[in-house]
């Protein structure tokens, strides 16, 4: 069983690396999703696989009776899934917003912050203070 899971993790990681080598940031994001799933499986396998009951303690008892599964990796994976879900949702929104603003998802074409001709750079339009408001930002407001 460990071997099967190890192979699955390997396949997932290699697929995700392939996806992450793409210039399309959306594909990169899909690669990240796969990679985080691979890592969750890795933690799960790292906690050893046991054919045990769910780690629940019966009423009136203070310790589980019989063989139960290792609860810690489950807790870790659950936390990692929740955090991963939040991060990926945020990133998806960011990619979408970037596409709407910059008109591209190709990372090679994203040269606004680091233009080849540095004199074209004009950062920090924001935050010029309350007293003398900055000239309006050309990008849309991110509602994040």
């Amino acid at each position, binding site marked *: 069983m460990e071997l099967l899971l190890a192979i699955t993790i390997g396949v997932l990681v290699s697929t995700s690396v392939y996806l992450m080598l793409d210039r399309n940031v959306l594909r990169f994001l899909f690669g*990240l999703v796969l990679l985080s799933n691979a890592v969750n499986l*890795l933690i799960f396998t*790292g906690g050893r696989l046991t054919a045990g009951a769910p780690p629940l303690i019966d009423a009136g008892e203070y310790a589980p009776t019989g063989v139960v599964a290792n609860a810690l990796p489950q807790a870790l994976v659950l936390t990692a899934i929740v955090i991963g879900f939040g991060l990926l949702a945020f990133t998806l929104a960011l990619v979408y917003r970037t596409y709407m603003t910059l008109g591209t998802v190709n990372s090679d074409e994203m040269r*606004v912050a680091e233009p080849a001709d540095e004199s074209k750079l*004009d950062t*920090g339009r924001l935050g010029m203070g309350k*007293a003398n408001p900055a000239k309006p930002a050309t990008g849309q407001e*991110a509602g994040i």
Partner: protein
Amino acid sequence: MSWLLVYPIIIPLLTGVLAYLFRNSPAGRWISVAGTVALLMASIMLMAEVLEQGVVAAQMSNWQAPFGITLVADLLGGVMVVITAITGLATVIYTLSEIPERMERLGFHALLQMLMVGVVGAFLTGDLFNLYVWFEVMLISSFGLLVLGGTREQLDGGIKYVMLNLVSTIMFLAGIGLLYGLTGTLNMADLHLAVRGVENTGLLTTIAVMFMVAFGVKAAMFPLFFWLPASYHTPPVAVSAIFAGLLTKVGVYALIRMFTLIFDQDVAFTHTILLWLAVVTMVTGVLGAAAMNDFRRILSFHIISQIGYMVLGLALYTPLGLMGAVFYLVHHIIVKANLFFVAGVAKRIAGSTDLARIGGLYAHAPLLAFLFLIPAFSLAGFPPLSGFWAKYVVVKAALDLEMWFVAGVALGVGLLTIFSMTKIWGSAFWPAHPDGIKPRLSDLPTFDRVALMLPIVALAALTCLIGLFPEPFVQFAERSANQLLDPTDYVTTVLGVQP
């Protein structure tokens, strides 16, 4: 006693909650200020306790280590929390003038406080998975702060920052999973003991390198730093400053913690990699800075170069080297945040951060020019400022090991640092403004002038203080380095038993 460790985390958390609920009124920003002052007081109380006891630990929910979550502060953790609070307070005061109301209404102050929660949590936790969670808290808030406002540059830089940091996070998580599979524990003190019984040392070294890559991305080490110069110059200056001061240092802190407490069984291999990475990091950072023509982009590249010095101190792995790393860490947070603040004021009164488009700051704002020179010289390592002692200790440690080449590179990089500082001086401060503007501080409204200059003056004073009276700070760094190299005290305090 255990509550002293909780306050620095819970105070910014509750402040963030209140600041968010009051985000539509001016009360929000003053809550943020008050909360950060409280954080500073709590962190000083914690530091006093740590100085007295050596190591302070607390078990959350009364679950004994290694089963529960442990919060622990040793000298390094304690001082980092104090510095976080100082930088946080400086930033919050600076934002009073800089951040427009429409960004406050999007929850700016809540994000800032949550960032501090994550940073402080990362410094105080004694559990590896908990460290991952704090990293995530820090990361999510930093994502938010970086793209809040949503200009084209911010989104462009944000994408690169977010993507590369996510990869590093997943790498970190994979390392945690493998380490847990190998040792069966995630408590850092317990791991210190557990890794000694591991038979498969090859796998342990592999895991060590995974952690090195994960934290290397966070710390912006060569060749993993590309997200930093792509993004740090895009958000508002206050955000740049707190990022530059704190975020990469959390990566360095994690490197120091992991590679002294847990991965010290194959020093010849892991620390040699760190050594050469540190050297290349120093050089690439400073060369990148020399090629830039924007105030904030120069400073961004300098962060990378300075990270090299800190990692170098760790890689040398002698008491003197670690002492230098600790001293450098503290000094650099103050100085770098301050330089970004200066860049922000320069932008505010002279109109740009592009060095070709500004000038005249020396003639019309001599106070600002003077306050620029203090952190700039400190960064380059001029005596008697704090940077001199930091560089001196690291270079001395390299010389003691007879690593002439490494020491030579460290000194040469210092020289190039002066070059780019001179470049800033020579185009932003010295010549007249190309558009004929007279950038005067007195043109700013009084409130803005105070809010912008107060953090700069305070941080510059701190730099001078460390520089002129280095004795207690050096002694402190030495104590901290000894504690890092011999973590018996740390382990006993956390586990509550003699190992």
